[in-house]
């Protein structure tokens, strides 16, 4: 199965690393570059600074684990989504904006592609893993709202990424689709 990660920042990069042992092939999509502020909350190492996130994670997965993946260092749009998701058996949405999430949902629904979303609150206290049938993207409260870039939220990012990785694992193994929400004290399966 080909798994396409859309957005490999905090949640996407951490989840991709946790999925490295799955019997699947992987593609990473992200237009952004690794900045020093990302090192405390994302799976990137110092040697990746300045590189495109998708390309940097591709290099890390190869160098650290011998895992070969595809990387696309571009911004997903309605124009290129067909190419980026070509051959996907599962799409994992870890984007940080509602507009991109909508584009992905519309495409996945039209094509019947399995799509799972992961999303975290701005204060890092709460997150969800939700399959597309039950998902509605939340907009930022205001443009430029603070995100979970500080290391303070790394444990929560890890918890949510682990929940997402396990959800992906169960889908790969049994086609199971399970929604969860993650708080500071618990992981709760919601469907």
């Amino acid at each position, binding site marked *: 199965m080909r798994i396409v990660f859309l957005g490999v*920042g905090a949640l996407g990069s951490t989840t991709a690393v946790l999925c490295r042992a799955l019997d699947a092939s992987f593609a990473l999509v992200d237009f952004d570059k690794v900045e020093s502020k990302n090192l405390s909350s994302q799976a990137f190492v110092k040697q990746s600074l300045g590189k495109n996130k998708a390309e940097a994670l591709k290099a890390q997965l190869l160098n650290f684990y011998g895992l070969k993946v595809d990387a696309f260092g571009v911004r997903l749009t309605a124009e290129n989504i067909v190419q980026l998701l070509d051959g996907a058996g599962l799409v994992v949405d870890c984007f*940080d904006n509602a507009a991109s999430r909508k584009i992905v949902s519309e495409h996945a629904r039209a094509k019947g592609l399995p799509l799972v979303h992961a999303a975290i609150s*701005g204060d890092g206290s709460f997150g969800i893993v939700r399959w597309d049938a039950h998902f509605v993207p939340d907009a930022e409260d205001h443009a430029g709202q603070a*995100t*979970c870039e500080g290391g303070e939220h790394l444990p929560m990012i890890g918890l949510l990424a682990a929940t997402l990785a396990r959800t992906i694992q169960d889908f790969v193994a049994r086609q199971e689709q399970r929604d969860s929400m993650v*708080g500071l004290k*618990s992981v709760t399966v919601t469907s």
Partner: protein
Amino acid sequence: MAILNITYNGLSADYPIELDGRVADADLKRIAVEVVRSGDVPGLHLPNLPVAAFDGFVIDRLQGGHRLYLRPKVPFGA
């Protein structure tokens, strides 16, 4: 009978609630403030919870409206 799950400051708890038809989001948020303040939600008792605590929160209505989730917005991922 429906279950209203309330998440606040990273803590979540369930509150069984009788609803007569569809209840507006604003009313559910008002009810949530009252029951969290009063201690009727096990594990989530906040007597001084602000009236506006759930402004900007989202309500998911799942399982035909029998499971309601009052939660913070989750705009971020990457």
